[in-house]
């Protein structure tokens, strides 16, 4: 908020940064996450302090983090990608089939192929949305069905089992480097790259500009079509990567893998402060939202609440988050009006 700095007494860089951190929307979600972890740990120390608990805490959310980051890209451009669950399931199944059908295929090749496959599925979404100028919700609702249908037709009632995949690949799913699971490290690297891109580059800022006002962005000469297309490709590619993770983590992939994840991904982004109306939010927020969702899922049984209530808690969280965002936006507007009237 540069307008305030002209009237305020200059503060040191560090204080300003800490102040900004406290004011950031993501901070509230982080506090909520810390509270959940603390409460669960107080009840059962194994939640955080046992090797398994620690590993699960980091490992379980990393798949949803990837999908939510991709979703954040799309939502920031004022679109939505409902097909991510189906894309993820399809790439997870592709991963398994590649290991079965091409014996001895190197793992990196499989990862690259699955990510590319996801990107192609995302490209189909993006091309339909960007070129045909139709609402993303309808298109991705259609491809949600279509991709899932292809998956079911391809897989039938068969499933890929852990025994079909090489041991080294499955070791990726559970392996750790210095007590940190490999998958979580990959997820954090992807997240950091995405966050840097969205915050610091011209391209990243253009996504926000498009989401804030598509018509203005077009008039200003931004490549709206190309950006929207890229957002969908990124979302598809990340869902593809999440599919590889899914196969590595769970070892068994049926045709229903990832069903319903689209709502978790949108929910995670919304909880993390990405406004569904576009132009607002960060990928960090979406990622923290994803971690919060998955952690609550595991913490509820420990806190003595049957995990049947998990979805209800998620619903309350989503509604709470958007009400909070609305309140913050209204307050911000009032403050801006006051600042204008004073000057």
């Amino acid at each position, binding site marked *: 908020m540069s307008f305030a700095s002209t009237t305020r007494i200059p503060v040191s860089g560090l204080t300003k940064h800490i102040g900004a951190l406290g004011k950031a929307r993501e901070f509230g979600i982080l506090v909520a996450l810390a509270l959940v972890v603390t409460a669960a740990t107080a009840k059962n120390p194994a939640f955080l302090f046992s090797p398994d608990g620690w590993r699960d805490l980091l490992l379980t959310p990393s798949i949803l983090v990837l999908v939510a980051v991709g979703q954040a890209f799309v939502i920031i451009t004022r679109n939505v990608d409902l097909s991510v669950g189906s894309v993820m399931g399809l790439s997870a199944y592709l991963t398994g089939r590649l290991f079965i059908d091409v014996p001895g295929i190197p793992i990196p090749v499989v990862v690259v192929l699955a990510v590319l496959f996801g990107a192609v599925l995302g490209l189909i979404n993006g091309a339909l949305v960007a*070129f045909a100028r139709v609402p993303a919700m309808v298109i991705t609702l*259609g491809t949600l069905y279509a991709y899932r249908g292809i998956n079911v037709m391809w897989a039938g009632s068969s499933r890929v089992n852990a025994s079909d995949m090489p041991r080294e690949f499955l070791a990726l799913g559970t392996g750790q480097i210095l007590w940190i699971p490999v998958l979580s490290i990959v997820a954090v690297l992807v997240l950091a790259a995405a966050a840097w891109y969205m915050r610091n580059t011209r391209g990243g800022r253009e996504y926000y500009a498009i989401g804030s006002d598509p018509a203005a962005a077009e008039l200003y000469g931004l490549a709206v079509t190309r950006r929207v297309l890229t957002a969908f490709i990124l979302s598809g590619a990340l869902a593809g990567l999440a599919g590889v993770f899914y196969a590595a983590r769970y070892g068994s992939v049926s045709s229903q893998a990832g069903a319903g994840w689209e709502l978790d991904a949108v929910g995670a982004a919304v909880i993390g402060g990405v406004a569904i109306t576009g132009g607002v939010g960060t990928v960090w927020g979406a990622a923290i939202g994803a971690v919060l969702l998955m952690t609550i899922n595991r913490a509820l049984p420990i806190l003595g609440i049957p995990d049947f209530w998990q979805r209800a808690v998620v619903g309350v969280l989503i509604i709470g988050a958007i009400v909070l965002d609305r309140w913050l936006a209204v307050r911000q507007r009032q403050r801006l009006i006051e600042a204008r009237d004073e000057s």
Partner: protein
Amino acid sequence: MTTATPAASTASVRTTRDFDKPLWRRLLLTRETAIVALLLFVVIVSAVTVKGFAQPITVNYLLLDIAPILLIALPMTLVMITGEIDLSVGSMVGLASVVTGVAVEAGMPFEAAALLALFVGVVGGAVNGFLVTVVGLPSLAVTIGTLALFRGLAVGLLGTTAVTDFPEAWTALAKAKIAGTTIPYITVPFLILLAIFAIVLHFTPFGRGIYAIGLSKDAARFSGVHVERTKFILFVVAGLVSAFAGIYYTLRFGSARGDNATGLELQVIAAVVLGGVSVFGGRGQLYGVVAAALLIGTLSSALRLANVTSDVINIITGVLLVLSVVAASVLAWLQKARTRPARPPHPAAVTAP
């Protein structure tokens, strides 16, 4: 949604231009007519080629299966014409089903339990309506939240158990056929609701206000339409009808479970959009939506009888949905290209499958 502005402007241009065309073109060359024609085509082709499709029993199962979709599509059409959306309907079906089950299990007579479920539907719809109209939140986000919330309450109340002892008379009624035909009784309340919705939407100021809101909220407000009140009422009605569909669902399968009707919201929205309702609001007809719901149902039952795996219907639903919206914008683009030949063609729009 990126494209809200250009699409809205082409839509408004097109409605005014519609009156330049002769009457028969305005009546026959519409989205709704295309869907009805496609429905008739599918029915005739399946009756000729698919063995067993022409039997009356097919109609019975078809109507029983798609009754919840048909029922909920009515209020959903109205909600979507105002430019809003309600994703929580499937969860409300589940919640109403569970509430009925829990109340019956607690010793309440079925009739009272059903009323309680309808009341829950009204309350749930009011929650959606309150958050959208009073707090001013986007309905997509709100109803994703209540989708999780209502489903969570449903699953939380019953866990993995199911309630199955409902009065025989009622479960039989849900599946009963109208004497002498193979048409199930559920079509009677549906037809009554259809008549009410059609009259309200097409022949009352309230209904015309719904279109006005979808075309331009501000213009509607300035011309005296109660925008917030209208939307609130529509969300409440959507909750109420979903709850009714939930009671029917419970009786039809004789069991109340937390995961009843999971994913129904997407099927309903698919039917509504396929039926020609614009997601931007302001455009759509009830008969198109009913035809689209019947089309999806007919296709799936014909394919099932033809021993095609029922999963192919997912692909067909998806592709139909995508094609229906893409076709509209390609047609609009072609029309524009014809009237303004100076503009160089946009190659991408043609190649888009």
